[in-house]
């Protein structure tokens, strides 16, 4: 394995999980989004989405704010600076890998 190809094994495993990649890809394009919007965009179930959001929050990649809109509970998710940087690095690593493995 060439050194530049090893970059893929160094990718952030927390982001490399498909559902979490999609969540971050949605959040990177917005300032904040609520749980319902993320659920529609990712196609995940409430339980699954909730688990993935918790993991991303634990890593400090997203910030979750629990509030109310009227009497309706509202979960707002926002990507942190750390999350944006991590996602940027992840994309660059993937791009490098794809570029190096082109036939």
């Amino acid at each position, binding site marked *: 394995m060439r050194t530049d190809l090893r970059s893929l094994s160094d990718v952030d495993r927390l982001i490399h999980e498909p559902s979490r990649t999609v969540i971050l890809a949605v959040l990177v394009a917005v300032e904040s989004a609520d749980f319902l919007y*993320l659920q529609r965009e990712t196609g995940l179930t409430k339980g699954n989405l909730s688990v993935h959001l918790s993991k991303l929050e634990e890593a400090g990649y997203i910030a979750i704010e629990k509030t109310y809109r009227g009497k309706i509970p509202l979960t*707002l998710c926002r990507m942190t600076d750390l999350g944006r940087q991590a996602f940027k690095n992840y994309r660059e690593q993937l791009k490098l890998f794809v570029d190096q493995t082109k036939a």
Partner: protein
Amino acid sequence: MTDNISNLARRTCAYWFIDGLADIGSGILFVVLGIPYLLWSLAPQGSALAKIASTGRDVLLLLGIAILFIVIRVAKQHSTYPRTGYLEERLSERRQVLKIGAMTLTGVLVFAGLITVGILFFPAFGPRLINGLVYFPTFFGLFLTIVQVVLGFRTDIKRFFVLGGIAALASMGLAVNSFIYLTGYPVDWRPLFASSSGSIPVGLSLAFINLFHSVYQDVAFFCALIGLAMLVSGLVVRRSYLHQNPLPVGAHDED
């Protein structure tokens, strides 16, 4: 990956228009804006009705967009966010929109300033410049066309191209009509200056009032046409949106 991120950013921008509320609101604003123009063109000069129409138009122009934004936001809170979720655009996107708005306003003010300077300090060109202002509604229509086309590209929503096409056709109609006004009824504003005892502001006011009195009917027609097109487009989108996204029953959010 970059393309996917771009698509997501485009979808984010398109989300504001997903429910048809923006189209309906803009359509109503244009139709309502057309009413004072129509009244102004029909009412005798200096009458109370003309004054009310003129004031109503100014109020609508100044407050209409702000009121529209507030009403749409409130309507979305009650109808859209519970159905398909809440989304806040990135600050950079909002700054870009504000920047474009500020640049447009600056352009209009510079244009208006140049026209005023031309009229006041270059008497040879003054009447021609005033006559040229008859095309202002056409320029506004073309500006609206550009806005719709840019929105179409930014959001990848096809109906904006159709609305842009309608605005372009209406603008061309206005341009032809304005041309007929000018060639059919050649106007020399110098007697107006003379009749106003040499007072340039009064002379200019008279010139504007006479010229635009005949053009305002066209503006009213243009506003009604564009407004109805937006309204119909918005209602169709709204119907489809409500049909595809019924209000969730029972648990909300993560419950």
